[in-house]
């Protein structure tokens, strides 16, 4: 509260600072957000730098070196085929980030499109939302499993399945903001000024509806990474020997006694990612959309 007042005072003193700058300043001061950002950046950097920070191919077998514990020579140890876990976990990070980012991108495009259409054009609202409700009625992970099993296990199909599962949830959030904004006076002013539907939606309504969407997308990134790991752990994600965190953990199940690190290391990587994104989402919600804080 006092924090906001200070910033407002500064804003006036500097003669109207750009609102985006104010938001970024507040985010930089938000401890939870910064912690989340650092955690997420650790994983994201490893994912981007994967080809340069690993020296062994993630799928190179070396039976002589199997079950080497983490430490000398092998940073994260080796698995039952003597493959370097460091290579596998880092390349797994790349795949996780790729899938998370793709699902977020799909949601950003189609979630906003469907949500805005349903909220703005009343005639199609009912139909779109009934389909939405039906898709949301399925248990999320079960629907994702069923879709990937029907389409066949592959990275692309996992992205598609998770898109189908989560887009309705994003669309619902966009719709509820658009419905409120549609009735606002500044929108009616735009209508009176003769603006077309497209201009009203893209220039007046959507920019004001973005805050909850951005918050949702950051949590969605976490869900997507987690769901991907779950799908490949169950054996319906990317096909082994593709190094995904879920695949590595599934393979480690048979060797829990002799080599528990095969499970714990990718598991901790997964946890850091999910936790980082959750912190990011919490921080964004506090700064961008303070009203939501009360409900959660």
């Amino acid at each position, binding site marked *: 509260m006092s924090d906001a007042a200070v910033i407002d005072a500064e804003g006036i003193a500097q003669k109207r600072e750009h609102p985006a700058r104010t938001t970024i300043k507040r985010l930089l001061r938000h401890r939870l957000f910064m912690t989340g950002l650092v955690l997420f950046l650790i994983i994201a950097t490893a994912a981007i730098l994967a080809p340069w920070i690993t020296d062994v191919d993630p799928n190179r077998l070396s039976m002589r070196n199997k079950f080497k514990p983490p430490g000398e020579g092998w940073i994260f140890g080796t698995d039952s085929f003597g493959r370097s876990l460091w290579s596998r976990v880092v390349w797994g990070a790349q795949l996780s980030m790729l899938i998370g980012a793709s699902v977020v991108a799909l949601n950003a495009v189609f979630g906003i499109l469907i949500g805005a259409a349903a909220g703005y054009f009343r005639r199609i609202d009912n139909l779109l939302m*009934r*389909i939405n*409700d*039906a*898709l949301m*009625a*399925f*248990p*999320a*992970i*079960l*629907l994702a*499993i*069923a*879709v990937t*099993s*029907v*389409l*066949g296990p592959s990275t692309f199909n996992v992205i598609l399945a998770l898109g189908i599962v989560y887009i309705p949830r994003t669309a619902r959030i966009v719709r509820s903001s658009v419905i409120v904004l549609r009735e606002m006076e500044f929108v009616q002013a735009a209508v009176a000024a003769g603006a077309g539907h497209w201009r009203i939606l893209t220039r007046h309504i959507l920019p004001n509806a973005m805050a909850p969407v951005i918050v949702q997308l950051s949590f969605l990134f976490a869900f997507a990474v*987690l769901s991907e*790991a*779950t799908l490949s*752990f*169950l*054996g*319906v994600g990317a096909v082994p020997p593709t190094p995904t965190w879920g695949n590595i*953990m599934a393979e480690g*199940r048979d060797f*829990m*006694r002799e080599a*528990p690190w095969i*499970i*714990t290391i990718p*598991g901790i990587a*997964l*946890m850091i990612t*999910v*936790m980082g994104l*959750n*912190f990011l989402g919490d921080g964004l919600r506090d700064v961008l959309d303070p009203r939501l*804080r*009360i*409900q*959660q």
Partner: protein
Amino acid sequence: MFLVALRRLLSAIPVLFIVSLISFGLMRLIPGDPAASIAGTSATPAQIEQLRRDLGLDEPLLMQLLHYYQGLLQGDFGKSLLLGKGVLAATMERLPVTIGLSLYALVLTLLIGVASGIIAALRQNTWVDQVAMMIAMLGISIPGFFLGLLMIIFFAVQLGWLPSGGYVPFTQDPIGWLRSTTMPAISLALLQAGLLARITRSGMLEVLRQDYVRTARAKGLPERQVILKHALANALIPIVTVVGIIISLLLSGAVVTEALFSLPGMGQLLTQAVLSRDYPMVQGGLLLVTTFLVLVNILVDVLYALIDPRVRYE
């Protein structure tokens, strides 16, 4: 009350109709020839043809749809290829395991989530609050199957206290049931308990600021009564709303947990069906589970109207 229930049931009809359409459409999405895909690579053309006829895939799409709905109206959800019995029968056999596990996890979620949420709210901004909320955040961030694996490594493999898998029916041996379901239930409950703790805390903080709580304190009621009777009763309302969501998440999470701890429930049935390309089972099972969930959510809404009179007069 009756009207609320009726209205919710009616509004569920279009949703369930679309759900059934999606389930139907799913099997038709298989790229290429579904019958060949189900039969596998070693099947002869005659076997594929036979399977196509058995599944009714040789009929025009509209006839398939008609037969599908005729079947559904008679309680026929299709026949599992793998188990050789009806989907409904197979589901009914496995459902008690999943419901038992989910209820156990729900009880744990409510106990841990509500208790820690209230304690954190009463000790707002102290170390108790911070520790409770940190644990809640950790609970939200630990993937359920990772926690399950960690518990197996620690309690089953290293210490040998609990079995790492297998299932004992409650009716046969309640203690054995508890031993076989405690780890799965905890790994299932922690995520939801974390969410619930945060919701309870903020709900409680909101209510504690209200005038009627001050009034209750001012007229000299013991603090225990103020908290439990005046504050908690009102803080419960948002909690009941999320119970429906929690049940949905628990049933969804049970899929993974059952696969992990090899519990013979719905989740295991469906994952096995998926892995062995038993599409009629996937289609029917998905529809049954989702219908069940929709009905549970209606029940929660009715419950909600029961405890919050404002909903009834809307």
